[in-house]
């Protein structure tokens, strides 16, 4: 272990080590204790004030028969199914187009596309709430071209409107990652393909896309996990309306407005299982389409 300090005065070093590792050790203790507590809490009935009561699987039984839970599940999966492909598709498109132009324009555009990701979800949510408003920007535009206005946040439309906001916010981050991925593809591949007479489309489908599959895989996993936990956008835009209820929002509502801690803990375990299952499926499926060695 030559890379490690050779200790001259062990006592002093032990003292400093204890001091230095004190905060992270407390943190580790907290995290593991909390994870264990979260696991057992799901099997109790607890309102935080009185002592928790062990009730076995009753919470899970109740969840199974809870129509709002199923509503939250279907809304959340809808958000995942719409926003993940759309964000990644749009992000890839933007990245490929940005890669064609170099220099200042490209970096300004990347900067602008990425900007919403850095903004508070609350601020963006409020802005879009008024864009979707009955007299908002979108309806003004529709009126301007002579179309009827739409209730963007009405029961049937609200969920899709939220998805649009999520896609609008997130695709810039994705294109940023893709631009880095594109820059890593060796130029020679394109030169060789060009000499063999491949056109731009062929080059895209036979070189660019396969070379980007590891990036795409990473982005699918990350954005799916993010979309499964959608909260801020729906909370701001639609308040507590059931049309856009998501799982995290339901957990929040149960735990911190009704103080059904046990029920909410059981819900969060279900959410985690969903995320885990999705991730495992994605990891399993990657060998069919992700190429790590070209």
């Amino acid at each position, binding site marked *: 272990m030559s890379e490690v*300090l050779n200790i001259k005065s062990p006592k002093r070093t*032990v003292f400093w080590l204890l001091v230095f590792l004190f905060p992270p050790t407390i943190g580790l203790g907290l995290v593991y204790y909390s*994870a264990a507590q979260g696991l057992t809490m799901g099997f109790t009935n607890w309102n935080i004030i009185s002592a928790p009561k062990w009730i076995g699987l009753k919470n899970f039984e109740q969840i199974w028969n809870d129509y709002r839970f199923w509503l939250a599940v279907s809304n959340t999966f809808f958000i995942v199914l719409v926003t993940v492909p759309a964000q990644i598709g749009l992000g890839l498109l933007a990245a490929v187009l940005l890669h064609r132009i170099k220099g200042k324009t490209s970096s300004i555009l990347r900067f602008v596309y990425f900007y919403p990701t850095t903004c508070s*979800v609350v601020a963006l949510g*409020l802005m879009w709430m008024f864009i979707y408003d009955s007299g908002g920007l979108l309806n003004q535009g529709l009126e301007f071209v002579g179309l009827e206005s739409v209730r963007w946040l009405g029961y049937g439309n609200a969920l899709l409107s939220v998805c649009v906001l999520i896609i609008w916010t997130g695709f810039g981050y994705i294109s940023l990652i893709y631009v880095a991925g594109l820059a890593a593809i060796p130029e020679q591949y394109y030169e060789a393909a060009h000499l063999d007479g491949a056109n731009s489309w062929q080059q895209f489908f036979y070189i660019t896309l396969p070379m980007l599959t590891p990036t795409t895989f990473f982005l699918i996993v990350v954005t799916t996990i993010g979309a499964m936990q959608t909260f801020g956008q729906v*909370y701001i835009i639609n308040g507590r309306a059931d049309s856009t209820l998501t799982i995290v929002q339901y957990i929040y509502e149960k735990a911190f407005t009704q103080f059904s801690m046990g029920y909410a803990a059981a819900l969060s375990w279900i959410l985690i299982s969903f995320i885990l299952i999705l991730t495992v499926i994605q990891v399993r499926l990657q060998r069919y389409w992700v190429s790590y060695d070209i």
Partner: protein
Amino acid sequence: MTSKLIQSATRMPRDSNQTIRKVSLGDITANTILVFLFVVITVPFIWSAIASFQTPHDFVSGKGFLPSEWTLTNYKKVFTDIPMTRMIANGVFIAGTASIGGVFASAIAAFCLAKVNFKGRALYLSIVILTMMIPPAVLLIPFYTIMYALSLIDTPWALILPHLTGSAFAIFFLRQHMLTIPHELHEAATMDGCSIASILFRIYLPLVKGPMSVLIILNFMIHWNDLLGPLIYLNSVEQMTPTAGLSFFRGQFASEYPVLLAGSIVCIVPTTIVFLLFNRQIRQGLLISGLK
């Protein structure tokens, strides 16, 4: 390659073969899409910024893009009817303390795990890394009960303390950086009889300033933009951060939209400044870490 092709193509005379015209047509489509996306991203910001100077009456009547009368009342209301100054101070305090404290704690731990030899070091590191596997959603409720037991609910410390212990990712990230620093540096220092504390503070922390600042900037933005945490832990208006405060006042100002829009603009100004100042570090940090 393609761009080179296009460059040479555009320089050629117009009446050459068809493929060249096809490529430049592709170029036009590409640029149109880029401009379209640019417009789609910027218009909501511009529109909100303009609307935040509108009178509520103007906004509701919704006639045209530009207000008939520019007014600062909305911004005044943000700072008088909503205690925004207080909220910004809370937000800066929470995000600043949590990010700076957390990254320093992580850097110190990373130093111990990278450069000091002690029994159980490898085990400690794997216990740290294992916490990255635990989803934050599991910890939400138990953490709340801990803060409740410590009676820290409705204080900024409920949001700060959990971060002051350092994060697994930051520890791992900074440890990797410290491993790349040659050990000749501290060998000389040890010869001179320096303690590991002075080696850490005089040699290693200055050398990982770059990665540390990337982490601090990213964490600052994440904490500033956080909604769920402040919503859970902060109940009284005086304790709220701008994000929680705006969502709290959303109902009260439901009929005065421009005030809420002005509040939103105020809320994104600090992160925008940070982003403009450090955009290279932020993008670089995001690329390395993949964290959002």
